[in-house]
């Protein structure tokens, strides 16, 4: 394999596999992209995981527990995909807890009520699906294949979240208020999940050339808005944007200006929950160290004594 073969593979829309030759920049970018995605799955367990023990029915408890377990599975699957490129799961985890690698800034917002569980399913998982569906065609084979399975499970989670909101909207006035309040708090952060505007997204061009990104941030964001508006109407909630309206000429919804300073603040570590999310992950890692050491010590003993 050589650079020409790599370029030709990309040009033909075929997959790069772990043992193929690839430019260092491609390898580094893929490791970073996959690791950030894996970190997001693992940190993303926290906001909803906090509601498992408090879920208000056993059915919702089972749904939520299974969902959070799926996220652990996605994380595991993605760390394994990163390992095909020579990364190490333990090392990536250290980078996360030392703040050297990022995760999706959406998980730095708090989950204040049980309606947040539904809204995370509907909007946050929905935005994630918009971002991730095109990645099922990523040029890096292991990531593309992981994304197919992950997108199927994410769609399932999204529908479950939407179904919870539909159910709550048929409940008491207090429950309907809870849903509206959660939508008000999560709508703008969900739009920020697509990243900075195209003009300020320096890596987009290279990533699109390498076919590890298929649409620009603004394209995906517009798509998400267009799909979400009728869903909000069906649900009976208002999206908190006075400038949101159909533009017949563009055949898209116009929407208001996003507060980019907030996104920058949250990405740079100053969101409402950044410190706590990382502290929790760090504590789990530190408190589990003796267990992992024991497993390694036991495995070493078993190797010394042939069965």
């Amino acid at each position, binding site marked *: 394999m050589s650079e020409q073969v790599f370029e030709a593979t990309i040009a033909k829309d075929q997959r790069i596999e772990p043992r193929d030759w690839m430019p260092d920049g491609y390898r580094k970018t893929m490791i970073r992209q996959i690791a950030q995605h894996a970190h997001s799955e693992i940190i993303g*367990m*926290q906001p909803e*995981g906090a509601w*498992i*023990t*408090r*879920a*208000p*029915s*056993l*059915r919702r*408890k*089972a*749904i939520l*527990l*299974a969902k*959070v*377990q799926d996220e*652990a*599975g996605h*994380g*595991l699957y993605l760390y394994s995909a990163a390992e095909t490129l020579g990364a190490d*799961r333990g090392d990536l985890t250290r980078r996360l807890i030392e703040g050297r690698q990022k995760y999706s800034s959406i998980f730095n917002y708090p989950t204040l009520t*049980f309606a947040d569980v539904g809204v995370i399913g*509907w909007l946050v998982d*929905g935005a994630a*699906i*918009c971002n991730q*569906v095109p990645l099922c065609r990523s040029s890096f084979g292991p990531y593309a294949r992981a994304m*197919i399975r992950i997108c199927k499970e994410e*769609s*399932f989670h*999204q*529908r479950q979240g*939407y*179904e919870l909101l*539909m*159910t*709550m909207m048929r*409940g*008491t006035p*207090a*429950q309907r208020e809870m849903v509206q309040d959660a939508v008000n708090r999560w709508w703008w952060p969900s739009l920020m999940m697509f990243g900075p505007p195209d003009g300020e997204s320096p890596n987009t061009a290279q990533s699109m050339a390498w076919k590890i990104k298929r649409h620009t941030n603004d394209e995906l964001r517009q798509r*998400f808005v267009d*799909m979400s508006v*009728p*869903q909000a109407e*069906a649900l009976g909630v208002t999206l908190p944007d006075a400038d949101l309206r159909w533009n017949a000429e563009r055949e898209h919804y116009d929407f208001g200006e996003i507060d980019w300073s907030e996104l920058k603040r949250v990405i740079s570590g100053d969101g409402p929950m950044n410190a706590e999310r990382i502290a929790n992950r760090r*504590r*789990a890692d530190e*408190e*589990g*160290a*003796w*267990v992992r*050491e*024991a*497993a390694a*010590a*036991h495995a070493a003993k078993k190797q010394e004594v042939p069965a």
Partner: protein
Amino acid sequence: MSFDDAYQALTDHDDDARWAYGTGFADPLAGVPTELPEGVDAADLAAYCLMLGDDALILSHRLQQWVTRAPELEDEMAIANIALDLLGQARLLLTRAGEAEGAGRGEDDLAYLREAAEFRHVRLVERQDEHFGHLIARLLVFSVWRLALLDRLSASRDPVLAAIGAKGVKEVAYHREYAAGWAVRLGDGTPLSHERMQAGLDAVWPLIGELFEPHEVEQRLPGVAIDRASLRSEFDAVIAQVLEAATLDRPTSAPSSERGHGPELAEILAEMQGLARATPGGVW
């Protein structure tokens, strides 16, 4: 379903409930005949179902508290899986209890609206884990006991309990294997892990007496309920095998057969029931 339309498809239909599948059956006992066996006292059967159901419900709660705290991602998945299995068992057993009782109470009424004194689980499941060694010790002891119990329950005269037993055997066989595997790794791992695994075992050991102490509800349900005392020899044999492989000592403390609940139950119920009780008339 096309991938590109996954999100769009949300409002394409009006049957949202199907997406929460595996959770909200119109017939929660899946078509198993539900009439009471002859000569069985309905109140006793309901009480027995609550005993087995509450054991699963409360231990599941303790395992749910480990979510996002596990030492490794594989264990994150395993612990959540075990918690889900036990929650599933609890749901079936509480549903059967409500049905036997005949007062129109469902699984959620029983889980969320009973007071502490009405819960019937063994004290073993209440305890808070201080570290992973405690989690494994309790899970080992509990799943060795429960597997022996469910295995015998699958021959119960009550068709629902028999079906729950048969389903649960497959699940708890895995729970036992998971716990035994970690007991061996920790016991025969590092000096620190050995010490913590032994400490976990020592901590739960005083609570095992109740697991084998004959219970009056069981005695009034011959052929339906399992006599706990009969589980002792299988329990002892399996535990001895695990402890030997794990280089652990069988604790010497005398098991207490005392029943009842400790102050930790109030904390568990406050956490589990708080939201449901704070939203009267709420639908979820």
